[in-house]
Protein backbone atom coordinates (compact mmCIF):
# COMPACT_ATOMS: atom_id res chain seq x y z
CA UNK A 1 0.00 0.00 0.00
CA UNK A 2 2.67 2.46 1.04
CA UNK A 3 4.79 1.28 -1.88
CA UNK A 4 1.99 2.13 -4.27
CA UNK A 5 1.44 5.50 -2.64
CA UNK A 6 5.11 6.21 -2.89
CA UNK A 7 5.11 5.32 -6.54
CA UNK A 8 2.47 7.93 -7.32
CA UNK A 9 4.32 10.46 -5.23
CA UNK A 10 6.95 10.37 -7.94
CA UNK A 11 6.32 12.98 -10.66
CA UNK A 12 6.76 10.51 -13.54
CA UNK A 13 4.03 8.18 -12.29
CA UNK A 14 1.79 10.98 -11.22
CA UNK A 15 2.05 12.55 -14.66
CA UNK A 16 1.04 9.30 -16.34
CA UNK A 17 -1.87 8.66 -13.96
CA UNK A 18 -3.05 12.25 -14.27
CA UNK A 19 -3.29 12.02 -18.07
CA UNK A 20 -5.57 9.01 -17.71
CA UNK A 21 -7.68 10.47 -14.92
CA UNK A 22 -8.34 14.12 -15.75
CA UNK A 23 -10.70 13.67 -18.76
CA UNK A 24 -12.89 11.30 -16.70
CA UNK A 25 -13.03 13.73 -13.81
CA UNK A 26 -14.01 16.62 -16.12
CA UNK A 27 -16.75 14.41 -17.57
CA UNK A 28 -18.02 13.37 -14.14
CA UNK A 29 -18.11 16.97 -12.96
CA UNK A 30 -20.10 17.98 -16.06
CA UNK A 31 -22.74 15.33 -15.27
CA UNK A 32 -22.90 16.50 -11.64
CA UNK A 33 -23.20 20.15 -12.74
CA UNK A 34 -26.16 19.35 -14.99
CA UNK A 35 -27.90 17.40 -12.22
CA UNK A 36 -27.19 20.09 -9.64
CA UNK A 37 -28.34 22.93 -11.91
CA UNK A 38 -31.61 21.21 -12.84
CA UNK A 39 -32.25 20.51 -9.16
CA UNK A 40 -31.24 23.96 -7.99
CA UNK A 41 -32.72 26.18 -10.68
CA UNK A 42 -35.80 24.21 -11.71
CA UNK A 43 -36.88 21.61 -9.16
CA UNK A 44 -36.13 23.32 -5.83
CA UNK A 45 -38.93 25.60 -4.62
CA UNK A 46 -38.36 29.31 -3.95
CA UNK A 47 -37.26 30.20 -0.41
CA UNK A 48 -40.09 31.46 1.84
CA UNK A 49 -38.02 34.43 2.99
CA UNK A 50 -35.60 35.14 0.17
CA UNK A 51 -37.73 34.14 -2.83
CA UNK A 52 -35.84 33.17 -5.97
CA UNK A 53 -32.69 35.06 -4.97
CA UNK A 54 -31.70 32.17 -2.68
CA UNK A 55 -30.74 30.18 -5.79
CA UNK A 56 -27.39 32.01 -5.73
CA UNK A 57 -26.58 29.57 -2.89
CA UNK A 58 -25.88 26.86 -5.48
CA UNK A 59 -22.82 28.67 -6.82
CA UNK A 60 -21.91 30.70 -3.74
CA UNK A 61 -21.66 28.00 -1.07
CA UNK A 62 -19.83 25.38 -3.19
CA UNK A 63 -17.22 27.96 -4.28
CA UNK A 64 -16.81 29.21 -0.69
CA UNK A 65 -16.33 25.64 0.61
CA UNK A 66 -13.89 24.95 -2.20
CA UNK A 67 -11.95 28.16 -1.50
CA UNK A 68 -11.17 26.84 1.99
CA UNK A 69 -10.66 23.21 0.97
CA UNK A 70 -8.22 24.27 -1.75
CA UNK A 71 -6.29 26.32 0.79
CA UNK A 72 -5.87 23.26 3.01
CA UNK A 73 -4.65 21.28 -0.02
CA UNK A 74 -2.18 24.05 -0.84
CA UNK A 75 -0.91 24.40 2.74
CA UNK A 76 -0.59 20.66 3.44
CA UNK A 77 1.09 19.99 0.09
CA UNK A 78 3.42 22.91 0.80
CA UNK A 79 4.16 21.51 4.27
CA UNK A 80 4.94 18.07 2.82
CA UNK A 81 7.35 19.71 0.38
CA UNK A 82 8.94 21.83 3.09
CA UNK A 83 9.27 19.24 5.84
CA UNK A 84 9.73 15.92 4.04
CA UNK A 85 11.10 17.32 0.77
CA UNK A 86 8.32 15.60 -1.17
CA UNK A 87 8.65 17.00 -4.68
CA UNK A 88 4.99 16.36 -5.50
CA UNK A 89 4.13 18.52 -2.47
CA UNK A 90 5.82 21.55 -3.98
CA UNK A 91 4.17 20.78 -7.31
CA UNK A 92 0.64 20.39 -5.91
CA UNK A 93 0.93 23.55 -3.82
CA UNK A 94 1.93 25.59 -6.86
CA UNK A 95 -0.81 24.02 -8.97
CA UNK A 96 -3.61 24.69 -6.48
CA UNK A 97 -2.97 28.42 -5.91
CA UNK A 98 -4.59 29.81 -9.11
CA UNK A 99 -7.60 27.51 -8.61
CA UNK A 100 -8.00 28.64 -5.02
CA UNK A 101 -7.72 32.30 -5.98
CA UNK A 102 -10.37 31.99 -8.68
CA UNK A 103 -12.87 30.17 -6.45
CA UNK A 104 -12.30 32.65 -3.62
CA UNK A 105 -13.01 35.43 -6.10
CA UNK A 106 -16.18 33.60 -7.20
CA UNK A 107 -17.35 33.15 -3.59
CA UNK A 108 -16.83 36.86 -2.89
CA UNK A 109 -18.46 38.06 -6.12
CA UNK A 110 -21.52 35.80 -5.87
CA UNK A 111 -21.83 36.70 -2.18
CA UNK A 112 -21.86 40.35 -3.16
CA UNK A 113 -24.56 39.68 -5.77
CA UNK A 114 -26.60 37.93 -3.06
CA UNK A 115 -25.94 40.59 -0.43
CA UNK A 116 -27.22 43.49 -2.51
CA UNK A 117 -30.86 42.34 -2.78
CA UNK A 118 -30.95 40.71 0.71
CA UNK A 119 -28.94 43.10 2.89
CA UNK A 120 -29.18 46.20 0.69
CA UNK A 121 -25.42 46.44 0.28
CA UNK A 122 -22.75 44.91 -1.97
CA UNK A 123 -20.19 44.75 0.82
CA UNK A 124 -19.80 45.13 4.58
CA UNK A 125 -16.58 44.89 6.57
CA UNK A 126 -17.88 42.10 8.77
CA UNK A 127 -15.91 39.11 10.00
CA UNK A 128 -16.99 36.54 7.39
CA UNK A 129 -16.52 38.78 4.37
CA UNK A 130 -13.27 40.31 5.59
CA UNK A 131 -11.65 36.96 6.44
CA UNK A 132 -12.65 35.57 3.04
CA UNK A 133 -11.09 38.64 1.40
CA UNK A 134 -7.90 37.96 3.38
CA UNK A 135 -7.99 34.42 1.94
CA UNK A 136 -7.97 35.93 -1.56
CA UNK A 137 -4.96 38.07 -0.62
CA UNK A 138 -3.16 34.99 0.76
CA UNK A 139 -3.62 33.22 -2.58
CA UNK A 140 -2.53 36.29 -4.54
CA UNK A 141 0.47 36.72 -2.23
CA UNK A 142 1.45 33.10 -2.80
CA UNK A 143 1.16 33.47 -6.58
CA UNK A 144 3.15 36.73 -6.54
CA UNK A 145 5.84 35.04 -4.45
CA UNK A 146 6.09 32.16 -6.93
CA UNK A 147 6.62 34.49 -9.88
CA UNK A 148 9.01 36.76 -7.97
CA UNK A 149 11.50 34.03 -7.02
CA UNK A 150 13.36 32.57 -9.97
CA UNK A 151 14.64 29.40 -8.29
CA UNK A 152 11.77 26.92 -8.09
CA UNK A 153 12.92 25.18 -4.91
CA UNK A 154 13.38 28.47 -3.07
CA UNK A 155 10.02 29.75 -4.33
CA UNK A 156 8.32 26.56 -3.14
CA UNK A 157 9.90 26.88 0.32
CA UNK A 158 8.94 30.54 0.73
CA UNK A 159 5.43 29.85 -0.57
CA UNK A 160 4.97 26.92 1.81
CA UNK A 161 5.86 29.10 4.81
CA UNK A 162 3.35 31.74 3.71
CA UNK A 163 0.66 29.10 3.11
CA UNK A 164 1.23 27.41 6.49
CA UNK A 165 1.09 30.69 8.42
CA UNK A 166 -2.09 31.61 6.55
CA UNK A 167 -3.86 28.44 7.75
CA UNK A 168 -4.79 30.42 10.89
CA UNK A 169 -7.30 32.25 8.70
CA UNK A 170 -9.29 29.10 7.87
CA UNK A 171 -10.94 28.51 11.29
CA UNK A 172 -11.50 32.27 11.48
CA UNK A 173 -13.53 32.14 8.26
CA UNK A 174 -15.38 29.05 9.40
CA UNK A 175 -16.34 30.25 12.89
CA UNK A 176 -16.64 33.97 12.07
CA UNK A 177 -20.44 33.75 11.92
CA UNK A 178 -20.51 32.28 15.43
CA UNK A 179 -17.75 34.28 17.12
CA UNK A 180 -18.85 37.71 15.98
CA UNK A 181 -22.24 39.12 15.21
CA UNK A 182 -22.22 39.45 11.49
CA UNK A 183 -24.62 40.23 8.70
CA UNK A 184 -23.76 36.92 7.08
CA UNK A 185 -26.22 34.15 7.83
CA UNK A 186 -25.15 31.13 9.85
CA UNK A 187 -24.24 27.73 8.45
CA UNK A 188 -26.92 25.94 6.45
CA UNK A 189 -25.25 22.55 6.54
CA UNK A 190 -23.32 21.39 9.60
CA UNK A 191 -21.84 18.07 10.59
CA UNK A 192 -23.70 17.69 13.87
CA UNK A 193 -27.13 19.21 13.44
CA UNK A 194 -29.82 18.49 10.96
CA UNK A 195 -29.33 20.95 8.08
CA UNK A 196 -31.62 23.99 8.31
CA UNK A 197 -32.78 23.49 4.76
CA UNK A 198 -35.39 21.33 3.05
CA UNK A 199 -34.25 18.14 1.30
CA UNK A 200 -35.43 19.44 -2.09
CA UNK A 201 -33.04 22.40 -1.66
CA UNK A 202 -30.29 20.42 0.06
CA UNK A 203 -29.75 17.71 -2.55
CA UNK A 204 -28.95 20.17 -5.38
CA UNK A 205 -26.59 21.98 -3.01
CA UNK A 206 -24.70 18.77 -2.25
CA UNK A 207 -24.65 17.86 -5.96
CA UNK A 208 -23.22 21.27 -6.85
CA UNK A 209 -20.66 21.04 -4.06
CA UNK A 210 -19.58 17.63 -5.35
CA UNK A 211 -19.48 18.96 -8.93
CA UNK A 212 -17.21 21.84 -7.89
CA UNK A 213 -15.03 19.44 -5.91
CA UNK A 214 -14.59 16.96 -8.77
CA UNK A 215 -14.00 19.84 -11.20
CA UNK A 216 -11.32 21.17 -8.86
CA UNK A 217 -9.46 17.85 -8.85
CA UNK A 218 -9.69 17.59 -12.65
CA UNK A 219 -8.26 21.08 -13.19
CA UNK A 220 -5.69 20.50 -10.45
CA UNK A 221 -4.38 17.41 -12.27
CA UNK A 222 -3.84 19.38 -15.49
CA UNK A 223 -2.13 22.22 -13.64
CA UNK A 224 0.02 19.72 -11.76
CA UNK A 225 1.16 18.21 -15.09
CA UNK A 226 2.33 21.67 -16.21
CA UNK A 227 4.27 22.13 -12.98
CA UNK A 228 5.77 18.63 -13.30
CA UNK A 229 7.00 19.38 -16.82
CA UNK A 230 8.57 22.63 -15.66
CA UNK A 231 10.16 21.11 -12.54
CA UNK A 232 11.43 18.05 -14.41
CA UNK A 233 12.20 19.57 -17.81
CA UNK A 234 15.85 18.49 -17.76
CA UNK A 235 15.16 14.85 -16.86
CA UNK A 236 15.40 11.98 -19.32
CA UNK A 237 11.77 10.89 -18.94
CA UNK A 238 10.41 14.34 -19.87
CA UNK A 239 12.67 14.30 -22.94
CA UNK A 240 11.34 10.86 -23.90
CA UNK A 241 7.77 11.92 -23.23
CA UNK A 242 8.09 15.01 -25.41
CA UNK A 243 9.82 13.08 -28.18
CA UNK A 244 6.91 10.75 -28.75
CA UNK A 245 5.53 9.31 -25.54
CA UNK A 246 2.81 11.94 -25.68
CA UNK A 247 0.66 9.83 -27.97
CA UNK A 248 0.39 7.01 -25.43
Amino acid at each position, binding site marked *: MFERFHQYAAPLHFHRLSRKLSPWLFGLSAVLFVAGLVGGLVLAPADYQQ*GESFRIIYVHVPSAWLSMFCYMVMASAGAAGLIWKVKMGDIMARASAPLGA*SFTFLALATGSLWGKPMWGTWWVWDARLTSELILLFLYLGYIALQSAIEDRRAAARAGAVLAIVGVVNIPIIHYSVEWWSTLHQGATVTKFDKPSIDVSMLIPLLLMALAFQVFFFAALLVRARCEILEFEQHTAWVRDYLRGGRKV
Partner: protein
Amino acid sequence: MKTFSEFLAMGGYASYVWSAYGLALIVLGWNALAPGRRERALERKLAARPERRSA
Protein backbone atom coordinates in the same frame (compact mmCIF):
# COMPACT_ATOMS: atom_id res chain seq x y z
CA MET B 1 -45.81 24.94 -13.48
CA LYS B 2 -43.77 28.03 -14.21
CA THR B 3 -43.54 29.50 -17.67
CA PHE B 4 -40.11 29.97 -19.20
CA SER B 5 -40.28 33.77 -18.92
CA GLU B 6 -41.19 33.45 -15.24
CA PHE B 7 -38.18 31.20 -14.84
CA LEU B 8 -35.93 33.78 -16.50
CA ALA B 9 -37.40 36.58 -14.35
CA MET B 10 -36.37 34.76 -11.13
CA GLY B 11 -39.11 36.50 -9.14
CA GLY B 12 -37.60 39.91 -9.88
CA TYR B 13 -34.06 38.90 -8.92
CA ALA B 14 -33.02 38.02 -12.49
CA SER B 15 -30.06 40.43 -12.68
CA TYR B 16 -28.53 39.15 -9.42
CA VAL B 17 -29.16 35.46 -9.97
CA TRP B 18 -28.07 35.34 -13.62
CA SER B 19 -25.01 37.54 -12.97
CA ALA B 20 -23.94 35.10 -10.25
CA TYR B 21 -24.41 32.10 -12.55
CA GLY B 22 -22.71 33.95 -15.42
CA LEU B 23 -19.68 34.68 -13.26
CA ALA B 24 -19.58 31.03 -12.17
CA LEU B 25 -19.64 29.98 -15.83
CA ILE B 26 -16.73 32.32 -16.64
CA VAL B 27 -14.62 31.13 -13.68
CA LEU B 28 -15.33 27.44 -14.37
CA GLY B 29 -14.80 27.87 -18.13
CA TRP B 30 -11.47 29.60 -17.60
CA ASN B 31 -10.32 26.93 -15.17
CA ALA B 32 -11.37 24.21 -17.60
CA LEU B 33 -9.56 25.70 -20.62
CA ALA B 34 -6.55 27.69 -19.37
CA PRO B 35 -4.58 24.79 -17.82
CA GLY B 36 -4.92 22.66 -20.96
CA ARG B 37 -3.84 25.52 -23.18
CA ARG B 38 -0.84 26.17 -20.93
CA GLU B 39 0.07 22.48 -21.03
CA ARG B 40 0.05 22.35 -24.84
CA ALA B 41 2.08 25.56 -25.13
CA LEU B 42 4.58 24.29 -22.59
CA GLU B 43 4.95 20.92 -24.33
CA ARG B 44 5.55 22.66 -27.66
CA LYS B 45 8.10 25.00 -26.09
CA LEU B 46 10.00 22.22 -24.33
CA ALA B 47 9.88 19.92 -27.37
CA ALA B 48 11.42 22.67 -29.52
CA ARG B 49 14.49 22.90 -27.25
CA PRO B 50 17.78 22.03 -28.93
CA GLU B 51 18.91 18.47 -28.13
CA ARG B 52 21.61 18.26 -25.50
CA ARG B 53 24.25 15.58 -25.66
CA SER B 54 24.83 15.23 -21.94
CA ALA B 55 21.74 14.30 -19.96
